[in-house]
């Protein structure tokens, strides 16, 4: 866990909550089934308020519990998959947020959490989609899966700064997909989220190839106006990686 989040959790837990969590970590590390009833109870025991970087107190406390599981590899994957299956959205979010940490501590966990990431990406819960797209997804999703995930975020209006690994993984094909998306929006007379432009701008010729610039000459006033707004925003954007 990010040391910043760990410190924020320690700062924010009340005396009772801290004692409960310390005891819960011991129980979870000693009794293989304890986590199944301790994990759902975290919100009411530790609090659900915001912590830092979009995490809640309960998220961080739950991730601490998962890190204490005395399991590795496939057994660890099986336990957290069941917690996710029986979990409410807040529990599922914490499982997704734990994946990178679990792999850091146990390389044999490797890609075994990927089905949970894919399930979140198939759903419509923007909170879970954002939680799924942390460093673990950036390491393990294949190129197609990663591009589709970014495009889904744009459709669901999830800010792209919540997506890990964009600097390394955004490629020309993703830029092409985003430019085509922008063109489609302009053709509908609609606006485009500003965070797609740095990626499009980083790949010369992609915008031109999308057909968007020609919309500035459209006979339909809405399309023309949307194109002018889009081209202005594009020109004002620094390409990704240039800053």
């Amino acid at each position, binding site marked *: 866990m990010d040391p910043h989040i760990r410190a924020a959790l320690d700062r924010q837990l009340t005396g009772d909550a801290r004692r409960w969590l310390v005891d819960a970590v011991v129980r979870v590390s000693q009794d293989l089934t304890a986590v199944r*009833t301790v994990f*759902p109870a975290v919100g*009411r025991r530790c609090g659900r308020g915001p912590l830092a970087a979009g995490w809640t107190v309960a998220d961080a406390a739950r991730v601490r519990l998962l890190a204490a599981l005395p399991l590795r590899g496939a057994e660890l994957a099986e336990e957290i998959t069941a917690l996710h299956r029986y979990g*409410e959205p807040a529990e599922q979010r914490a499982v997704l947020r734990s994946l990178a940490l679990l792999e850091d501590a146990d390389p044999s966990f490797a890609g075994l959490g990927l089905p949970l990431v894919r399930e979140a990406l198939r759903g*419509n819960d*923007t909170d879970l989609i954002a939680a799924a797209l942390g460093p673990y997804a950036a390491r393990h999703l294949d190129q197609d899966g990663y591009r589709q995930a970014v495009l889904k975020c744009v459709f669901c209006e999830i800010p792209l700064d919540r997506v890990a690994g964009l600097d390394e993984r955004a490629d020309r094909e993703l830029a092409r997909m985003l430019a085509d998306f922008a063109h489609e929006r302009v053709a509908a007379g609609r606006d485009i989220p500003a965070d797609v432009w740095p990626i499009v701008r980083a790949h010369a010729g992609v915008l031109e190839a999308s057909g968007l610039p020609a919309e500035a000459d459209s006979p339909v006033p809405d399309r023309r106006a949307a194109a002018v707004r889009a081209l202005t925003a594009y020109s004002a954007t620094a390409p990704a990686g240039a800053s």
Partner: protein
Amino acid sequence: MRIFDPHIHMTSRTTDDYEAMYAAGVRAVVEPSFWLGQPRTSVDSFTDYFDALLGWEPYRAAQFGIQHRCTIALNPKEANDPRCAAVLDVLPRYLAKDRVVAVGEIGYDSMTPEEDEALARQLALAVEFELPVLVHTPHRDKAVGTRRTLDVVRESGIPPERVLVDHLNELTVGLVADSGCWMGFSVYPDTKMSEDRMVRILQEHGTGRKLVNSAADWGRSDPLKTRKTADAMLAGGFDDDAVDEVMWRNPVAFYGQSGRLDLEEVKPDDTALFAGNSIRRGGE
């Protein structure tokens, strides 16, 4: 007037019902898990149902300004099916959830050995999870079934004040009053209990430890029976405070023993989402 319906199966009801209930004063409900009118054949159907009681249904209720909590259990009728009995093994995961305020409905249907086993195990779970229990009394042979239920409850060691014995009538109320358990009454359009009979029971036995519910479900039933009983109480000489005790403070006190009731007013809001989905229909 504020009303807490302590037993209603909203999964089987429409959004019109939610609207009418809110207009009648209903602000909180507890939905016990029960059977669906048609037998389930696998554990997975139960867990999907439990997930809906914890997810989609509270979301739906909140859109209409009503707070929704549930009770989780393997009901006695389906406890007799060996394909479903393994539900008992997954119950602990669900009994740990925030919105679960009791174990229930448990109890007897036909008083079989399988029902004995399910009842005893779930009473033990209630003790372990420090939760109240909602106990259903059988429709057939009710007096004998109620007596036997109370014996099993006593043997389990759960404190009687954490037990609500439901679907009572003139002939079973006395037994339960003497046991120290809470007393529930399901007011139905034709059967079980009517508003006027309910008022007479309250006049005779007092309002303490009494809860009134509609038990409305997919069968012929009326989600406004709580309000109609409250009106009958006022017409029968009870004051506003007595109505508030039966219709609000008693259910809050009973389920509050879970330590998880945590009621907060919700305003009707049809723009919120659950898991990215809404109760709106296309074009809105």
